[in-house]
């Protein structure tokens, strides 16, 4: 069952990457739905059955009944099924402020060199000129207060920018010490960024560093989809593809309707290597 898959899409690939990081030794705060929630739901069905995660509505450690109806990733009973505790938003924020949240998992529209997060506006903020999005939601609390934050976004030039158009939720702001100067708790901050093509960490200078790439792209392809040149880890790793088991669970139990995964390009194993499928 742990056979490497030969046919999957970018979205499934990135969900499996994050899912494998998740460990039931830690407490996670999962932002919204999408890839973050799918990653955690998958982990709970794979190697981390006792995984505890927290959602913004103060739900602690649910054993969610999937699949969800559209948008019903919080408050609704299937999302909050068999939880350990039901609270409210201030309770979730208190837990993070106290230091209980080891990892936050978030999706973002745009990220910059310092891991700052934009979910507010693309383009100019003033006067409604840019394209407006939803705002930080719960991501600000997660990004400010979780010990480590895992971000997921797409590998696109317009999403990896030198400076985000608007800092909705804090990364390292403008470098070492900036978070503390703005009143955020010490020892917290960005930890990883995942895209369907690459995994990034941060150097001592608080700036993004490519640590691994997917087997179906080259480093040049990844760099071409960034608006700035990041540091590159001395030993670049190759990310492992999803297994048949992960995909089966994801497709048949979690994202049955393809709400999250039915986007992105397909990858196939052909002539001894992984490549984008022609379809």
């Amino acid at each position, binding site marked *: 069952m742990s056979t490497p898959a030969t046919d999957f899409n970018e979205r499934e690939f990135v969900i499996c990457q994050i899912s494998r990081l998740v460990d039931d030794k830690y407490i996670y705060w999962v932002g919204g739905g999408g890839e973050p929630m799918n990653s955690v739901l998958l982990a709970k069905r794979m190697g981390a059955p006792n995984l505890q995660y927290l959602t913004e509505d103060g739900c602690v450690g649910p054993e969610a009944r999937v699949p969800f109806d559209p948008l*019903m990733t919080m*408050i609704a009973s*299937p999302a909050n099924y068999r939880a350990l505790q039901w609270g*409210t938003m201030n309770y979730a924020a208190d837990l993070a402020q106290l230091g209980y949240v080891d990892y936050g998992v978030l999706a973002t529209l745009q990220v910059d060199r310092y891991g700052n997060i934009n979910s507010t506006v693309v383009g100019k903020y003033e006067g*409604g000129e840019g394209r407006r999005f939803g*705002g930080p939601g719960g991501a600000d609390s997660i990004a400010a207060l979780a010990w480590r934050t895992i971000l997921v976004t797409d590998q696109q030039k317009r999403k990896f920018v030198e400076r985000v158009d608007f800092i909705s939720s804090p990364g390292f702001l403008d470098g070492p010490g900036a978070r503390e100067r703005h009143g955020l708790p010490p020892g917290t901050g960005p930890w990883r960024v995942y895209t369907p093509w690459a995994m990034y960490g941060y150097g001592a200078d608080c700036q993004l560093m490519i640590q691994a790439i997917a087997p179906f792209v080259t480093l040049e392809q990844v760099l071409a989809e960034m608006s700035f040149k990041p540091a590159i880890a001395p030993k670049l790793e190759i990310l492992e593809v999803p297994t048949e088991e992960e995909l089966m669970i994801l497709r048949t139990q979690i994202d049955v309707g393809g709400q999250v995964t039915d986007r992105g390009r397909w990858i196939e194993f052909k002539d001894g290597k992984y490549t984008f499928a022609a379809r």
Partner: protein
Amino acid sequence: MRILEEGKADYLKVDPDGYRACVRDNKPHQMVSKMMTHKEAVERFVRDGDYLAYDSNYFQRGPSSLIREIIRQRKKNLWLCGKFTYVAVALLVESGCADRVDIGFIGFGPWISRAVREKKCTIYEYSNAVMTLRLKAGAMGIPFIPTRSFGGTDGYQHSGCKTVEDPFTGKPVLLLPALNPDVSIIHVHQADEFGNARVFGTGIAHAECALASKRVILSAEEIIDTEEIRRDPARTSIAHFTVDAVVHAPFGAYPGTVQGYYASDPMGVIEAMGAMFRGDFTEYLKKHVYSVATHDEYLSKVVGTEKLAEIRRRETIREGYVS
């Protein structure tokens, strides 16, 4: 305390003494019945220019029927607490009811940039939990509350927050202005006629909203006896003296879910989201708000008994919700 930095935006005036006086003079300290219709509750307790908070949202145990009634009555110049919400802010702005929004998270779409460009709506930036913390401060009767989040963001610049040197630790700390809305609307599972109410499952800030707001309208799926409240007081989420109106609203969160009672209607959710993403609510408002006079008429004529039975049937989880 030394102020290190300040947000530059307008915010609802902070006045804890004024709020205490309002509690003394206007809150119903005596147990009196507050049962009334949607129409009467909104006519009496939602006023043009009010700061309006609603708990949760149009899709998840939110006061959807009361939001539709506010639109039907064409209230004006509301200032919204836009935390943890999808379409409600869009509906209230696009219908001409609201012109200011404190944003934690809202459902977006072309309507919002257009409303800002045309100066139909002014936006102030916060985050979801920053807004619920502001309500918590409002619910404690204090003027502000410190937090260790939100610092360093661009949202901060467009907020009413301040950063000071903490007099105890000497480190920078953010202060959020307390929020005491003029009116809150909250949808609950059960309430008695006086407004003692139960919310089952998770929530956003229903208890804080009730305590922090000058006027409070509850809509309830079920009206229960006070004897039932007294049988299990630990389940009381909201006490009667914070409440001004109790409206019986079965399926009040439609097209959203009420945990343990009914599931959401995915097609109803998609219809509202679709209008929002297209940036045109004309048809939606006509069909779901203006075509009917009451919530009962909405359920029977627009939604239909078959749909209601279906969403009731699809909610199969009872654990933790039903007393």
